[in-house]
């Protein structure tokens, strides 16, 4: 593929992104501004993640791309193809075989290792944005560590619903300093943010990059009497029987029938290949 520079972006752009990634790693959870480029896909389709991946990829990498846990959805397929074409890297659907995983809104079920990098596509990087629309103010709030407003928001959840109803993009405090939006992952995934792999977050439209180094303390905000809970549908996967994975609810017909399946397609497939069968999985077992 000599028609493109390796991994599509020009070298100066990659250097700019790389410098932002290094500063992001040095100040975990802090949003580093960067000069996001126009990519050959619309904003909202993972342009931030794609730029971070492009600046991070080496020719020896094996890339996996997931969208809501699935390898076979439009966004995942097109980003995977994009890097096959422009970087010539190998791709895989197998989580354990991937060296870089670009993700939209999920953390894979399988535990990630030291040698892996997880790149998140982030729509709104600022956790305080819906509480305070002005960038000048939210920046000041971060600099002063003024996060009371976020606790008020969680408190209002409790006073209205009896529990913290925020179920995705659940705010976390990174290394005891910055409050960070973990991107719209379900709060089920929040405990996994403390992991062995390097986590990079890219928001293309909002022009922010942030990062969480391995083994960094990541605490989901909560109250002593209303502790954080990682919730999922109270069910097992109907295909593979997994009790411990995050589930998607699939409507089967207009008579109210439904099934629950693992949102992580690779996890579900590998479990079925290993012989696990869920309540509805017998007839089309892999």
């Amino acid at each position, binding site marked *: 593929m000599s028609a493109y520079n390796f991994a599509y972006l020009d070298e100066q752009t990659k250097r700019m992104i790389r410098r932002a990634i290094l500063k992001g790693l040095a100040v975990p959870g802090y949003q580093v501004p960067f000069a996001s480029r126009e990519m050959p896909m619309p904003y909202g389709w993972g342009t931030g993640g794609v730029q971070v991946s492009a600046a*991070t990829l080496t020719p020896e990498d094996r890339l996996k791309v997931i969208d809501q846990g699935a390898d076979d959805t439009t966004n995942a397929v097109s980003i995977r193809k994009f890097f096959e074409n422009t970087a010539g890297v190998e791709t895989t659907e197998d989580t354990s075989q991937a060296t870089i995983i670009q993700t939209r809104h999920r953390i894979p079920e399988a535990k990630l290792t030291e040698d892996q990098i997880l790149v998140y596509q982030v729509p709104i990087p600022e956790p305080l944005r819906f509480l305070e629309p002005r960038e000048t103010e939210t920046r000041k709030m971060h600099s002063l560590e003024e996060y009371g407003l976020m606790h008020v928001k969680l408190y209002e959840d409790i006073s209205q619903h009896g529990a913290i109803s925020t179920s995705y993009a659940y705010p976390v405090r990174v290394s005891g300093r910055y409050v960070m939006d973990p991107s719209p992952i379900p709060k089920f995934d929040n405990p996994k943010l403390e992991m062995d792999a390097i986590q990079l977050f890219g928001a293309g439209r909002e022009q922010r990059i942030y990062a969480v180094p391995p083994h960094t303390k990541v605490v989901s905000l909560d109250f002593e009497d209303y502790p954080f809970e990682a919730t999922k549908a109270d069910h097992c996967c109907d295909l593979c029987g997994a009790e411990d994975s995050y589930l998607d609810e699939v409507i089967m017909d207009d008579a109210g029938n439904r099934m629950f399946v693992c949102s992580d397609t690779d996890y579900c497939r590998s479990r079925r290949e290993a012989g696990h069968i869920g309540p509805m999985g017998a007839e089309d077992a892999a």
Partner: protein
Amino acid sequence: MQDHHQFAGGFNDAPRDAANAFRAAMTAMARPGDIREIAGAEPPAPLSVAAGTLLLTLCDPDTGIYLAGDTDNPAVRQWLTFHTGAPFVRAADADFAIGRWEDLMPLNAYRIGTPEYPDRSATLIVECDQLEPRGAVLGGPGIRSTAHMSLPDIGALQGNAMLYPLGCDFFFTAGDKVAALPRSTQIKAEV
């Protein structure tokens, strides 16, 4: 490296060499105390391979470089100008500073960022004789329990860490090896 030519010693295949070099630099920054190999450039003396490769990977006309001590010589200036186009600046304006620890000091000469933009701080590339996984005890983000690294001046680096989230970030280089120390790392002298 006797007759070093300013046009020589760059990356053979810039996109791929820079990608591999950045992976090493990023892994080092994400895992303080880890010592990684980084190579690709062949800079003029006294720059090490690791320092030269870092500069080619990260610097361009947008980044001011401060050359400290004997790194500030015509061969290095010409080489960096040809390969990166980066301007040479005072310590106080530098995005990247390069040199031996004693030449780079004092630490308060460098930008540490602002409370609202802590990323606007200098990154120091410190040339060392060797990097060793022993000495100061490191803890914090990127470190499972503790890590060990040979550091030039524990007191000054502890002072930098106390500025968190402001402060400088460091790469330590020797030969083709690189290690990093971000401002987020807590440092204790070995007991």
